[in-house]
């Protein structure tokens, strides 16, 4: 399985909400996408599976095993969604049909793609529910979503995504809406299932800690475009982009650093994320950047690979090497 995005952009009328998004994902790889709210992370994955909201259009190429998804008719896309790309969404409380039993919702994907009969689908769904470690799966199989806790609902969401056996799993902030205690359970489950089925994974989060624990490579987004991409470990230890540095600096520390009596104050990045489609010329981050210079203003910096496998959109990246 290989996924390659080439200059993917998303427009709403005259406004550009997402621009110049490119990356490659090979078989079994894990990619984390980091960004604040408004960075366009969710739009990106919706564009990949072709479920952009009404009125938005995508440009560029999304190549799944060489086939451009953006050029496919809707009927062909329906065959690929679910069967080849599975998605898990952020809000488990609203992601499930409140009027349908959860067992049915899992089985539906199986019947739709694999055309097996209801009894076989039911058996397989039950097995899946158990596999995502739903406590007392046999009994809960007939439950309605509102009878489950948030963590349990997310397990159902995972089961639904895994049912047709996709090669690529996209998880859009799967634990943001969950309690911290449940969060690690769900993330562990996800990691195990992905490794076990040898799926590729795209994990979206605003939480660098989660990205650090789950992904090999990482892509940092800001205000609708990519700012940095590279090995996760490298990006988190030595970012080549002032925005990424700012994100890392804003992480709270549990213990004071060596030589300090108490933990330093939380650093923030001053200013606000510019709203989509209303960007001034030049680097999107320039107004908030501590390292901005005059040359950052006239035109948006182009994406460049500073090291093999590590790209940035910043003219001052060398200063951070």
């Amino acid at each position, binding site marked *: 399985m290989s996924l390659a995005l080439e200059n993917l952009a998303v427009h709403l009328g005259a406004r550009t909400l997402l621009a110049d998004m490119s990356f490659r994902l090979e078989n079994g790889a894990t990619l984390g996408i980091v960004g604040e709210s408004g960075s366009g992370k969710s739009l990106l994955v919706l564009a990949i599976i072709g479920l952009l909201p009404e009125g938005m259009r995508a440009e560029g190429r999304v190549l799944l095993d060489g086939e451009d998804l953006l050029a496919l008719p809707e*009927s062909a896309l*329906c065959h690929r969604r679910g069967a080849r790309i*599975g998605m898990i969404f952020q809000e488990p409380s609203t*992601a499930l049909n*409140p*009027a*349908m039993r959860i067992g049915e919702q899992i089985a539906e994907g199986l019947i739709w793609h694999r055309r097996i009969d209801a009894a076989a689908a039911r058996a397989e769904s039950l097995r899946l529910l158990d596999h995502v470690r739903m406590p007392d799966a046999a009994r809960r199989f007939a439950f309605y979503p509102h009878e489950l806790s948030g963590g349990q609902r997310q397990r159902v969401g995972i089961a639904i995504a895994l049912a047709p056996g996709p090669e690529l799993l996209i998880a859009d902030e799967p634990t943001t809406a969950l309690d911290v205690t449940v969060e690690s359970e769900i993330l562990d489950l996800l990691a195990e299932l992905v490794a076990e089925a040898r799926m590729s994974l795209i994990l979206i989060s605003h939480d660098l800690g989660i990205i650090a624990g789950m992904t090999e490579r990482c892509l940092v987004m800001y205000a609708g475009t990519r700012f940095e991409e590279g090995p996760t470990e490298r990006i988190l230890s030595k970012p080549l982009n002032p925005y990424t540095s700012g994100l890392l600096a804003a992480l709270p520390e549990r213990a004071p650093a060596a030589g300090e009596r108490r933990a330093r104050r939380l650093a923030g990045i001053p200013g606000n994320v510019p709203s989509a489609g209303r960007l001034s010329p030049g680097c999107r981050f320039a107004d908030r950047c501590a390292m901005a210079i005059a040359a950052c203003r006239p035109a948006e910096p182009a994406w460049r690979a500073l090291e093999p496998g590590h790209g940035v959109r910043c003219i001052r990246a060398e200063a951070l090497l």
Partner: protein
Amino acid sequence: MLRLLLGRLGSFIVTLLAASVVIFILLDILPGDPAAILLGTSARPDTLAALHHQLGLDRPLILQYLAWIGGALTGDLGTSITYGVPVSGLIADRLALTLPLALLAILISTSLALLLGVTAAAHRDRAIDRAVQGFAQLGIAVPDFWIGLLLILLFSTGLNWFSAGGWSGWSAGAGKALAGLILPAIALALPQAGVLTRVTRAAVLDVLAEDFIRTARAKGLDRHTALWRHALPNALLPVVTILGLQVSFLVAGAVLVENVFSLPGLGRLAYLALSQRDLIVLRNVVMLLAAMVILANFIVDLVYLILDPRLRARS
């Protein structure tokens, strides 16, 4: 769940009783002496007293009320002043027309509304959507009895397909009976369809914006399947609510439409009873019509529990 059902049932009965009290007050107490109204101001005192006794008007009001309610529970609704036959028989005959008529109208209007409303929502802001919305607005604005008149004009006077009035009754065969109900049912159904179409469209649009529709699409379901299998069942709740509220208008419409088509139904009976001052028939027919509305709302409450699993309390 059981407690919920019992609560609703209790509510239903209380509302029925309250309505019966209102009817009794409005029809039997306020207008004054029914016997005097019937016989006129020049009636002789002994004829008046005889009629009083015959109608049971010499008893205390509360006893008259209880006699009525008690009789209703056992199936004895008194005797019609005008026709001289048991009211229960009269009502049963008329009900055999009005009930199928109402149900037919609901069937037509709901099917039409669901079809048009879902289609309009699926093609939002496009030509078909605007056409449906326009149709809905017109449907709401047009009086049902006028549609009836136009239908008679078109089909009877003009094309001579259907007879202009009267009804064959069920004994002449179900097909012929239903044929006699089609035009009146359409007249009743069109304004209702207008209202329900708007509600359906709004409800489906609301549901389509929900996250679980996105989950269904992400699973690989096409637009059509996601719409009819996931969106519509969740959109039914507001539709059912409005349908319940519409029964009130359906009952009123039945009175009007039955008069237009000269159908021997409950509505026409109510009207005739009023013009003939047949209070015994009037009292019972009005009670029945009100009961139909109250019952419809009760059924709506029950249907809620089926449609929305969240409303059922699981222990």
